[in-house]
């Protein structure tokens, strides 16, 4: 029981710290790598919730595919984050807008509001006992019987995204 709290605390700490570093890291490649760490520790929390299928998907899709794609895009396009400090004097309103204080407040207020909603909402006390956990086999069976049409629509969506990305990035040739 204490081990559960400890491991959850460690994973949550890593998740939040790396998400914070995604915002504050100066180099964009570092931000991408911190994002991969955040995804990996969220996958650990999925393992704690005993959803090993989703944990594996999280590592494969997020930490593997999306991070690699973003790093490739950064490398291919020579996107550099050049922060030019403006020289002229700025008014207080402009400085507040540039510092992003409003965004910090919005993010914090949202997180606090959601936590408050969870705290006061009438979540049923009796959670389902641990017996009869879901296996990957059951997930697959449900996916290919009850959710066949959404599955095919998702495939079409991925195909369209692939074609669209190729068309958007292909160079014009005569």
């Amino acid at each position, binding site marked *: 029981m204490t081990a559960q709290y400890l491991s959850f605390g460690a994973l949550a700490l890593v998740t*939040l710290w790396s998400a914070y570093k995604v915002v504050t890291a100066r180099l964009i490649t570092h931000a991408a790598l911190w994002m991969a760490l955040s995804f990996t520790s969220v996958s650990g929390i999925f393992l704690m919730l005993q959803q090993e299928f989703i944990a594996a998907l999280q590592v494969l*899709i997020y930490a593997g595919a999306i991070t690699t794609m973003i790093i490739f895009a950064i490398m291919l396009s020579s996107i550099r984050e050049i922060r030019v400090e403006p020289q002229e004097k700025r008014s207080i309103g402009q400085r507040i807008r540039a510092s992003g204080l409003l*965004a910090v407040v919005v*993010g914090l207020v949202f997180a606090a509001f959601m936590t408050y909603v969870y705290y006061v909402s009438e979540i049923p006390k009796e959670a*389902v006992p641990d017996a*009869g956990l879901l296996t990957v086999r059951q997930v697959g069976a449900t996916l290919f019987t009850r959710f066949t049409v959404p599955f095919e629509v998702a495939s079409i969506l991925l195909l369209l*995204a692939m074609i669209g990305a190729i068309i*958007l990035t292909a160079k014009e040739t005569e």
Partner: protein
Amino acid sequence: MQLPIYFPLGLGALLFGIGLWGALTRTNAVRILMFIELMLNGVNLNLMTFTRYYYPENATGPILTLFVMTVAAAEASIGLAIILQIVRNRGTVEVDKVDLLKG
């Protein structure tokens, strides 16, 4: 599961809040894409938490999360393609410099 449900739910909300903060402060388009992924991650965490605590025998939660991941992957690829085109045509990746339609 002895862990109170508020812990993972609060973590998901905090993750979403950090993503929202970043998406509103940063102007680099690639970073904004990263923060959108972070926010979707928080949403997935909430989905899986409710699935685990109240419907552990129901496969609908993992499948919905799978679809969220599919849409996130499609969105990331299209978004990066659009950003590459913007870099190629306008030479900038800052979203507040792309203001051709500004009156």
